[in-house]
């Protein structure tokens, strides 16, 4: 995996992340399209994600939760707004209550994933735009429980693994 570029825009609260994979576009599309595969990479180690509902089509609803080592289950939702297989996926996303349903549908971030063939295989561009700093902080919290410190340990693992 090569991280080609990453661009953060403080003014618009957005992050653009570009990576390339040595696999065909159809195969990389499957890591998004198949919820069982998605569960294998969405959450960090020790914080597995479970997608209970996964309607992979425009207008489709998604419900998921993470399971923390402490046993808590932070919950989230997506509303899939565009599916253009195998090149483009768009969704709104936000936080859910204990019943799994959205706390506030208006309080959504927007994600756009594009896949395109390149010589090396597939280029994946993800753009996420947040509505507020609080939303960004909570998203970072759900994606990376132990924060930067743990992340740095994992980068070291990856480097020594190669």
């Amino acid at each position, binding site marked *: 995996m090569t991280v080609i570029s990453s661009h953060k825009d403080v*003014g618009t609260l957005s992050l653009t992340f570009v990576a390339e*994979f040595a696999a065909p576009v159809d195969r990389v599309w499957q890591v998004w399209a198949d919820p069982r595969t998605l569960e294998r990479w969405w959450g960090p180690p020790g914080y597995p994600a479970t997608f209970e509902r996964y309607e992979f089509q425009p207008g489709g609803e998604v419900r998921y939760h993470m399971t923390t080592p402490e046993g808590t289950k932070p919950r989230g939702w997506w509303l899939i707004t565009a599916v253009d297989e195998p090149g483009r996926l768009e969704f709104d996303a936000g936080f859910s209550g204990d019943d799994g349903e959205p706390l506030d549908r208006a309080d959504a971030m927007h994600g756009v994933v594009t896949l395109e063939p390149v010589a090396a295989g597939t280029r994946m561009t993800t753009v996420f735009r947040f509505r507020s*700093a609080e939303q960004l902080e909570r998203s970072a919290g759900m994606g990376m429980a132990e924060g*930067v410190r743990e*992340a740095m340990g994992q980068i070291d693992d990856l480097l020594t693994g190669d």
Partner: protein
Amino acid sequence: MVVDTDRVFHALADATRRDILSRVIRSGQSVSELARAYPMSFAAVQKHVAVLEQAALVSKTRRGREQIVTGEVEALRRVSLLLDEYEEIWRQRAARIERILQEDEQA
């Protein structure tokens, strides 16, 4: 320093305020100097500066009859750090995707 990140993002959501910030980060400028740089009233520029000040992105000091506006680099770093954390999440996710794709190949 406690930074109210929502105020920071609100302050940065405006192009004029971002521009003001980029000017005063390099060197302090008086409100009247800033006002001359934009096609808007002195009061309007003063209002933008006030929003930046509430977000602790700039501070004002008095120099004689002038108010000098100076950028607060630390506050910007804090915002930038939040986005860095989110970027790190995506680096890790991409690494996990890569492993899944490699396992496929071996299977």
